[in-house]
């Protein structure tokens, strides 16, 4: 395969530049290594570590669960998530695209129910 190992791992949800580089240095894989050049042992090691990490669907589920929990407990962040408004204290007076047209009554009703 022509893809470098680094690029291959970045395609996983939950592994970015930094984790990919750390993972590779842990098993002495050089930055421009191709997937086809990996030794069998290195492949097994990497698979073992990846299977322990929380990536892809597990991680997605965790994030969604976190949001759900916040909504259920009625925290400020949960409410903001429910309204689809900025969660981290950003300005909303300007520069925020509204989540729904203000004239749309049904959308308002849905957001208030949450």
């Amino acid at each position, binding site marked *: 395969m022509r893809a470098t190992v680094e690029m291959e791992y970045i395609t996983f949800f939950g592994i970015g530049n930094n984790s990919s*580089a*750390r993972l590779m*240095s842990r098993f*002495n894989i050089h930055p*421009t*290594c191709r997937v086809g050049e990996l030794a069998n042992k290195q492949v097994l090691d990497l698979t073992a570590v990846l299977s322990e990490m929380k990536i892809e669907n597990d991680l997605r589920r965790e994030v969604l669960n976190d949001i759900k929990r916040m909504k259920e407990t009625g925290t400020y962040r949960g409410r903001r998530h429910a309204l689809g408004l900025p969660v981290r204290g950003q300005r909303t007076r300007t520069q925020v*695209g509204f989540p729904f047209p203000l004239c749309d009554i049904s959308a308002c009703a849905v957001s208030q129910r949450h």
Partner: protein
Amino acid sequence: MASSWCWNCLSRLRPTPRALLPPSATPRISSAPFHSTAVHYAQPAKKKGNSLTVMKHRQSTSLRRKKKKVADRGGRPPAVGERKALRKRIVLSNPNALEVEGMLDLSPETMVDSRLRGTVLGLPVPMIDQLRAVQAFKPKQGWSIFRRPGTVLRRDTIEMGRLFEQISGEGDAAKKGKVVKKIVTGMKGSGKTVHLLQAMAMGFMKKWAVITIPDARELVSGETAYAAIEGSDPLQYVQPTATSALLTRTVDANRELLASLKVSQKHPALKMLKPSSTLEDLAKLGFSDPAVSWRVFQALWTELTATAPAAGLEKDFQPRPPMLVAVDGLAHWMTESAYRSAEFKPIHAHDLAFVHHFLSLLKESDSLKNGGLLLYATSASNNPNPKALNIALDRLAARQAGISASSPEYPQPPAYSDADPRVLDLLQPAEKAVSPVELQTLGGLTREEARGFMEYFARSGLLREIINDQWVSEKWSLSGGGIIGELEKFGRRLRATASASK
């Protein structure tokens, strides 16, 4: 009082010349109201849209541009490695250039002949393959404009030729079997890499073992595989693929020599080796299997530096020849490499076993037991410019000029600068320095040498100028005092202008 009539509109009242107007489908209106456009000039009315158009929310209103479609050029994209091969291609001959009559070849006689100083000597044709094997030629050098490759015999070359003779044991016997260690520096275009090439050519002529590292950067830039050596302290790393490539280079270039030498030491780590095998066979073990290449390289090195055979292997022992070790781009080895340890800390270049091996040759007093020459060149164009190396080289120059280490003039790293102590320590002389490292700074050619060089351009048909002292003197000054790379540009540039003026 000004008239309230608009003169422009009044003109409308006049009958329009019918013949000049395009025929129109709309019925003509004979009288036009004031301040309105004539019907046949009017824009077609816009279609009225649905008044209940839904406003688009959450869409940016910024300028939207149409993306240009990339034209399909047709054909397939270049194959893997094709573009790199083209980039790295080395052309050594130009059939359109004139053959220089009476051009001598570099030979053991001509390379030390001071009467030939300033002439361009051709590289012997059978040797070119060897020089290619050790990657002595670089793509951006101007080999492709001449009929055949040749180099100028300058002062430094003749001195080096004499050094080769002395170490080989001809003439001055005092230096026989000695190690000479040199770091070659100089301005950009001053001929450092070609100096190494000349050294390699001389090494091949004198039947030395020639080992080269054509680009020091490749070992530290994270492009080849690496693996930790278990149990080494401090932890060192091998680079199996790079070692394999080095072995291939070495065997290709020194095939004749290595095939004539037999294994004379015991190598318990290499079980597949027979006592009767040659050094070529030994080196070939490391080609196919990068896993053992480092051990094979170490075995080859012990063989080449052996002074006496091990017990039981005396039968075929032949004395080993001197060695030439040439490294280009030394500065890349003086910083942290692009590799990282398992703890994600950058690995210092000195912790790579390959690099460490070649740098320790500078430090050890009798690193090449059968004598030889270590030439480590810096590069001015591809230079990471490590502070510590610059200081270490300044110190080397100061020591050569007779300034003692305790003198206030002795170069010191600036206060609070983080000059790398490992690098500073590397070029520090040992207490009993038998063969200290020398600093060789390549400068410009002399006027006479420059004249010989420019005449070579003229005789190759590349330069249409009458070469006299005045012209040469002018170009010598313009090239920063005979910097050979700049002089070459004059030769090429004039070729371009000559062809344009035709």
